[in-house]
């Protein structure tokens, strides 16, 4: 079976106005198999987001080859890329990117609007509620983003990424704006999804967070410099319990 993600010498050069080209990704080769849970780490400006955008078919590589499920993405046109983003990939942004003044439920329903095989209104509702239930947010379905906390907004974004049932979930710093407890809750959701068979690739620069994944890639100056399996993987539920106990201990004393 082909790898879910197959990168061959991927490059990205940003051409900026002043004739100064930024070589953000300088030849990355890597493979991600189905069912993996990968964290990409690296210092700021090392090209993590750039690479994620290419993997997420939001941006095109300047050079190299990218096969998604064995399909060469560089030959596809705008509409075909849109369809891949819609059906195969769920993308979670660092800044949530929810539609404002639109309820959580409707935000989650959005990807189904652009689905080729159009669903009945009832089916859309059901699926969206299901996705919200997965992230424990069903009771907030009718709240607008400005009525939700950062962690809740991020969970809405995850539900939106899941609603079209993609095989691959991409997340660019999903916990970047969240406190540690909320971050662990989000990782719990990811671990649950990964256990269900969804392949997950996420960017983070927090080492603690990376320990919830199965494999860590480290980038520096547009290159992958390290690729290791996680030795002592943390379990989100255990960690949360420990955190709560510690919290209680503080309150008691």
């Amino acid at each position, binding site marked *: 079976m082909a790898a879910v993600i197959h990168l061959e010498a991927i490059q990205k050069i940003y051409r900026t106005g002043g004739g100064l080209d930024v070589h953000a990704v300088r030849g990355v080769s890597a493979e991600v198999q189905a069912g993996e849970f990968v964290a990409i780490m690296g210092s700021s400006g090392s090209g993590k987001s750039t690479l994620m*955008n290419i993997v*997420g078919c*939001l*941006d095109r590589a300047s050079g190299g080859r990218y096969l998604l499920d064995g399909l060469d993405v560089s030959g596809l046109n*705008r*509409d075909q890329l*849109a*369809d891949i*983003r*819609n*059906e195969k990939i769920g*993308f979670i*942004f660092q800044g949530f*990117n*929810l*539609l404002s*003044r639109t309820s959580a439920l409707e935000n989650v329903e*959005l*990807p189904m*609007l*652009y*689905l080729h095989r*159009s669903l*009945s*209104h009832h089916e859309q509702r059901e699926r969206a509620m299901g996705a919200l239930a997965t992230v424990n947010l069903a009771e907030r379905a009718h709240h607008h983003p400005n009525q939700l906390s950062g962690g809740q907004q991020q969970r809405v974004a995850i539900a*939106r990424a899941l609603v*079209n049932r993609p095989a691959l979930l991409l997340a660019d710093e999903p916990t970047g704006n969240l406190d540690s407890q909320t971050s662990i809750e989000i990782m719990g959701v990811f671990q649950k999804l990964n256990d269900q068979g969804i392949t997950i690739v996420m960017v983070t620069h927090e080492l603690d967070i990376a320990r919830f994944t199965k494999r860590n890639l480290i980038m520096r100056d547009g290159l992958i410099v390290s690729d290791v399996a996680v030795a002592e993987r943390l379990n989100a539920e255990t960690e949360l319990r420990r955190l709560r106990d510690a919290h209680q201990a503080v309150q008691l004393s």
Partner: protein
Amino acid sequence: MKRIFATLRIAARALRRNLMRTTLTMLGIIIGVGAVIGAVSLTNGAKSQIEAQIASMGQNVILVFSGSFSRGGVRSGWGGAGTLTIEDADAIRREIMGVTVISPESRTRAQIAAGNQNWNTQILGESPDYFDIRQWPIVSGSSFTEQDVRSANKVAVIGKTIADELFPGEDPIGQIVRVKNVPFIIVGMLSAKGLSVQGQDQDDLMVIPYTSAMKRVQRVTTLNSIMVQAAKPTLLAPAQQQIIELLRQRHRITPGKDDDFTVRNQQEIAEMATAQSKTMTVLLGAVAMVSLVVGGIGIMNIMLVSVTERTREIGIRMAIGARGGDILLQFLTEAVTLSVIGGLLGIAMGIGVSKLLSAQYAWPTLIPTQWVVYSFLFSAAVGISFGFYPARKASRLDPIDALRYE
């Protein structure tokens, strides 16, 4: 289908979000369409009344006026100072083929009185054929007769208004009405016709034998005009030509000199009357075009602003799988919704205004169904054509650039 519905819902929400802006943008279309519908209903109403009035002249009618148009078409004593005589009318009746009925006419305005009531009205001197030619039924009493004409009898047929003004709540038949102190007996009353295009009361008239009008009221020896009816439409043109020849001969007009009378058939009179309202309609159409185009530019402007403001939203939609076509459709739908709602409101406003005018000022209006359809389609077309450029601009955004847009 479902997708169109969803797109419509998104458009409606986006428009509702900026209600003030939406309303102001629509205003251009509303005013444009409203003005067109209102004005066209007015001219249409006028036109249909003119047509009805001309049709009420009777069928296949030729009018002979004394006086003439000068060569430039400028009026010179049209129907004025008399050159037509009763003998001319008799000659036409005798010698022109295909002429069935004719009515010599002598018209004036005069003060009339009954008891202590006074009224100023139009006095028409006609032959009994007048009522046939104009197909104007007498609802009570009867017409005067040929004998009344020969004897210049003091008998009259009155319009509804005179009955109402001079004999309120009474039967006017058999009553006496004095015209310049000459007493006339009322023998008949005409059916009511109501107001004319110009707002004139068509029932405010009194018809008497033309001989009586000439001898007893006006004290003149000439006629204002002669109304002639041809038996068939095909006889109209030859009859018209023969009348001209006959009258030139009778009036001893040498070749090369202008006629001292004017012959016009109904068709020509109708054309003269409607030519004006046609120009009006064309003019209105042009004004409508301009105002709708201005409205369209307003829509384009707002849509461009909207696309810029919502660049991030566009980016988000594209990131989760919206195609360029989906975005194009969404913004186009928004523009068309804007213009179509504007168009509908404009139609409602136009109809409302014209209804108000006709109720308030008794102006005849006629809601032009096809113009309602035209302006609806046109406003939709305005939305499509002026919304297309902003929508295409939105659809061509790059997802990653749109997402990064601040």
